[in-house]
Structures are given as C-alpha cells and as structure tokens.
C-alpha cells in the first residue's frame, strides 16, 4: 500500500493536487464541500510524506528542461509543514461560505507547496507568481475599499518580486547557460556569494526578489500593511506560506551567504520596537512574524548544518505557533468586532479556551522551554555563537528577551483592564484548529525527536540537544527576567499605553513620500503643460488670424471673388508652367 502511494506520488508534482483540486470546490455543496476541502491537504500530506527522494519529474520545453519535482529533505520538510498549515487553516475556515476565498486559499497553498519542490528557476518563477496572485484574493475578500487598496499595494510588491526573479533568471541564464535552482552535487547555496559587489547581476536580482518576499528590512512593509487587512481566516492562510517560501528559497539558493547574517539580525531587532507600540494586535503579530523570519535568515547566513537545521526546524515550529496566534486574534476579531488593544481586555472569562490556546502560542513564540520555539530557535542561537558572530549573538539574545512582549497579545486581549465586552467563545471549528495547533506547539516542545528526524541534516551526527541545563536555565532566565521587566514597566507606568494610532514605517516612502513626489511632479509637469498649451494656442490663433486676413474680401487679393473664366485661365497658365518645368 505504502509503495503504491509512493509510486503514485512520484508521478505527480506535489502541490498540483491542491492547486488543481481547488478548482473543483465550486462544484460541491455543504458537507461534501467541507469533507473535500479537508481531504485535499490530508491526501497531499500523505503523498508528500511518502514521495521518494530524487529528481522525479522533468519536462522538456523548447530547449529547456524544467524540473517540476525534485525531492530532498529540505523540500520535504517545507512540503509537510505547508500541508499541515493548509489542513489547520481549512478547519479554522470551515464556517466561511465564501467560495472565492476557499478556492483562492487552497490554490495559494498548492502554489507554495509546488514551489518548494521545483528544481529550476523558471518553474520557481511560475509558482512564485502564483502565490502572489492567488493570495491577494484573501485580502480583497474583505470587500472594502480599504482592503482593495491594500490588496493592490500587496499585489504590486509581490508581482514586482516575481519580475525581479524573472529578470535575474534571464540574466543568470545568459551568463551561465544554467537554470538550475540547486543541483544534485550542490543542493543548497548554489548562488551564495562572498561580496555583493562581486556577485553577478542576475544573482543580485534573484537575491533581491527573495529578499522582498522574506521581508528584509526596508523591503518588509508589505507584510505589516497587508496581513492585518486580510479577512479573519485569510490572515491565517497568509501567515504560513509566502514568507516561508521565501525562507526556503533563500536557504536553497543562498545558504552560507554572510550578508544574510547582519540582515537577519536587523530583522530580529527592529520590528519588536514597532510591536511594542502598535495597537492593532494582528499588526503586532505581523511585526513579530518579521522578527521570527530574522532568526531564520541568520541561520541561512551562517549556513552550517546546525544553523540550516535550525532554520528549517524554526520555520516548521513557527508556521504552527504563528498560525495559532493569528487564529486566536481572528477569533477575537470575529467575536468582539475589533482587534485594537485599546478597546479590548478582560475577554478571558468569556473566551477561556481561546485564551489558553493563545497563551500556549505566545509561550511557543517566546521559546519557553517545553514549547516548540525553544527546541528550534536554540539551534540558531548556538550556531551563531559557534560561528563567533558575537554582536549578532548579542542582538539575537536581545530579540529573544524582547520577544516576551508577545505576552502583550494575550495580555491586552484577554486580561489587562476589563473592556466589558459581552462576547461568545469562538466557533467550534476555530477551537478545534487552535486546539490542534496548540497541541503541536507543546508536543514538539516536549518530544522534538520526530521533528528532528525531518530536518535536512542528521541531528544525531551533530550531537546537539536542546534540553541541557545551560540552555534551559539561560533561556528561562532571559524570559522570566523579561516578564519581570514587563511587570516593572507596567507598575512604573513606563510601559507605553495602547493608543489608537497609525505608526508610520517604511511604507511611508511610497504611501506618503512617493505620493507627494508624484503630486509635486504632476503639479510641475501640469504647470508646464498649461504654459505650453497656452503658448501653442496663441501661436495657432495668430496663424489662423493671418490666414483669415489674407482671405478676407475686404483686405486682400485672395479674398476677392473671381470670375470662373479668370480662374480657369490662371489654372491653365499654371499647368503650362508645370509642363515646361517637366521638359527641362
């Protein structure tokens, strides 16, 4: 049976099941549709689990051979977690009756899965853009003017990333004659460079393209802009795939690129400052998502086996707890009608299960011992120290301590002051999804061995274990003292209150600065246009005037009426003149 499934799985590119299967959703109704949507990721998960390793499906197109399926441990772990995320998200969205969202969400998941199994840049580009186009419907599905504008900005940036990837691919192909995205001989780090100034232009463009999707500093703001504006369920879907596809792509292409270490360190640190002062709790989560990507990017930059295992494992754990946190905040938004910290609080009595699940998610993201974040993030921390990246290590410790401020999420939503909101507990399907995610957060934390089995490099050979005295005590010290600081800051009134506000970030460049620039430029161009048009108008009027005067009966020869005979004579004279000219 297992051999049979494996044999079948080897014939179909993973992801296609979700991508094409989603198209049949509109044909089904009610329970059948729900069952079908649950079955798709389950079947996909089994196939991804069993698909044999190696280069399986190659398609010849024109003179190029496109590798639609290449399986190794790095692609498999991302394929598996993407299916788990899709399954949890389907359960979470079962109460939604919006066909557009259902189809778009599963096609989005399918594109993400397909992208992590391709072996060439052209196929990667196709699925890279597919994730952009399918996912924007999860934002537009809110069907508000604001969501429409946000979706447009999101789409522009995502498609822009794809265009850079395509341009980079073409230039790289012209330079090297290769479309390979990882080879059998060098599965990871094929495009790694020492100095960006010496890297070939194609590689730099590909790097930038991945950097946009991975939310590098200053390229990041599409994330905080778009995710909080998506639908309640849409944000849960979005949080799993796009950025982690970028993490996968960076690991595959650029493992061991030193430049990624400072970039990642900056990513871990700066978003948490914004997280502290942000009022929209789903936007707080978007900032902490950005911070978590930073840890993964550092791991990719270090590029050792332990670091890459840390990155892959952390992406796995992160997708689950981040999804869980977005789910709990989605439940709050659904029930309370707002997600602003300034208007929430005290919901724990009325939403006890959601509260517990959210606290588990917060513990996992904070990397508390016995929760999933701990067993994966400490690999990256250890790898940073082993590589003697002292400053980066200190920054990562700072970011780890600061991450405790994600206690802010459950704190302001469920505790803090009582907002007096009379809300109901989340719907059953949401509770099941959150419960399953919370279970995984704890299960991975307590018993990480099955996850370690999935990591790209052999953990036993690396001889590393998360649960030794030093790791546990130091991490606990960091987090408990951080909690102590939270209490101290609250008691002294130093902790910034939740205020209704917009905090401007790098999006200001295009949403305000760029807009102003365009307006000023438009004004400038418009001014010159008006001056030019007026001048041209005057000149034209002068010409018309002169012609008019020339033809006016009162003032000129041409204006006077001629007899037909005179006119005929004149024409005859002209014809003779032409004839004579033609002879000479």
């Amino acid at each position, binding site marked *: 049976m297992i051999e049979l499934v494996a044999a079948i799985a080897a014939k179909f590119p993973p992801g296609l099941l979700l991508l094409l299967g989603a198209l049949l959703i509109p044909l089904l109704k009610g329970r059948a549709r729900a069952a079908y949507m649950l079955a798709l990721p389950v079947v996909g998960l089994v196939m991804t689990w069993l698909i044999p390793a190696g280069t399986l499906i190659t398609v010849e197109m024109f003179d190029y051979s496109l590798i639609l399926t290449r399986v190794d441990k790095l692609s498999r772990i991302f394929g598996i977690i993407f299916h788990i995320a899709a399954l949890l998200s389907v359960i979470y969205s079962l109460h939604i009756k919006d066909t557009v969202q259902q189809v778009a969400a599963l096609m989005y998941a399918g594109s993400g899965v397909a992208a992590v199994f391709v072996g060439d840049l052209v196929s990667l580009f196709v699925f890279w853009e597919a994730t952009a186009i399918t996912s924007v419907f999860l934002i537009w599905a809110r069907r508000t003017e604001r969501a429409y504008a946000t979706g447009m900005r999101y789409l522009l940036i995502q498609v822009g990333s794809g265009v850079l990837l395509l341009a980079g691919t073409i230039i790289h192909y012209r330079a090297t004659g290769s479309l390979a995205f990882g080879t059998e001989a060098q599965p990871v780090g094929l495009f790694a460079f020492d100095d960006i100034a010496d890297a070939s232009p194609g590689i730099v463009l590909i790097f930038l393209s991945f950097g946009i999707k991975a939310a590098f500093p200053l390229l990041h703001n599409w994330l905080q802009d778009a995710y909080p504006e998506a639908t309640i369920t849409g944000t849960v879907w979005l949080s799993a795939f796009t950025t982690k596809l970028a993490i996968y792509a960076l690991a595959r292409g650029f493992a061991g690129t030193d430049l990624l270490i400072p970039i990642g360190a900056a990513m871990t640190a700066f978003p948490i400052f914004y997280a502290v002062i942000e009022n929209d709790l789903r936007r707080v989560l978007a900032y902490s998502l950005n911070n978590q990507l930073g840890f993964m990017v550092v791991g990719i930059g270090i590029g050792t086996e332990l670091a890459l295992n840390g990155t892959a494992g952390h992406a796995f754990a992160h997708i689950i707890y981040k999804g869980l946190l977005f789910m709990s905040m989605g439940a709050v938004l659904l029930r309370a009608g707002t997600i602003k910290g300034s208007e929430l609080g005290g919901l724990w009595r009325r939403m006890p299960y959601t509260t517990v699940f959210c606290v588990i998610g917060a513990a996992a993201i904070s990397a508390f011992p016995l929760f999933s974040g701990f067993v994966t993030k400490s690999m990256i921390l250890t790898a940073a120290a082993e590589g003697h990246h002292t400053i980066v*290590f200190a920054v990562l410790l700072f970011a780890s301590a600061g991450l405790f401020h994600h206690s802010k999420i459950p704190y302001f939503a469920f505790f803090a002051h009582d907002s007096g909101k009379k809300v109901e507990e989340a719907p059953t399907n949401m509770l099941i999804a959150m419960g399953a995610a919370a279970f995984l957060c704890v299960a991975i934390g307590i018993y990480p061995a099955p996850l370690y089995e999935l990591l790209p490099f052999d953990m036993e050979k690396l001889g590393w274990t998360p649960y030794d005295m030093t790791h546990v005590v130091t991490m606990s*010290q960091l987090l408990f003292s951080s909690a*102590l600081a939270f209490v101290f800051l609250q008691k002294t009134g130093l*902790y910034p209150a939740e205020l209704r506000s917009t905090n401007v970030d790098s999006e200001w460049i295009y949403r305000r600065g760029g807009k102003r620039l365009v307006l000023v430029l438009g004004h400038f161009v418009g001014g010159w246009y008006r001056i030019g048009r007026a001048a041209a108008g005057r000149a034209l009027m002068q010409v018309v005037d002169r012609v008019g005067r020339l033809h006016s009966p009162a003032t000129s020869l041409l204006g006077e009426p001629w007899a037909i005979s005179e006119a005929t004579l004149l024409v005859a004279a002209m014809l003779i003149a032409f004839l004579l000219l033609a002879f000479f």
Partner: protein
Amino acid sequence: MSDDPHHGPPSVGAVAVKRILRSLYVACAVLVLLDFTYEKHGHYTWEAWPGFHAGYGFVSCVLLVILATQLRKVVRRDEDYYDRD
C-alpha cells in the same frame, strides 16, 4: 472610544495577580541561584557569569520599551493618516 491609557489594575482579581507576581519573583530568584549549582557552558566567558542572562533580559526589555516609547514620538500619526489626502 477615548485615548485614555490603560494602566488600571488587571481584572483577573487582585489576589490571583499577587500570587502570580510572587511566583514570578521566586522563579527569577531560583533561576539565578541555579546558576551556582552547575557548570555553565557557553561560547563566551560572559555567558558563564552567574545571572548574566537574567540581567541581560531585564535590561534589554527596559531599554526596548524606553526606546520604543521614543520611537512612538517620531512615527505616531492619527489613525486615519493614510486615509486622508
């Protein structure tokens, strides 16, 4: 709908809060004391200082919040900032 800061006492119940806080203080003390009972292995000597991570975590968080409060002064705009023309 006001902009009032919410620094009031949490609604969990004063007794429970007190108990939670006391456990937190005890946990912090125990964790620092634990550092004297085993051999800390770090890659840097400063990692092995007893209570280093506790101090680092506390200072980090206070710094983070103080700097974030300053950042707010620079970046804070009205809620409808981008909706206006």
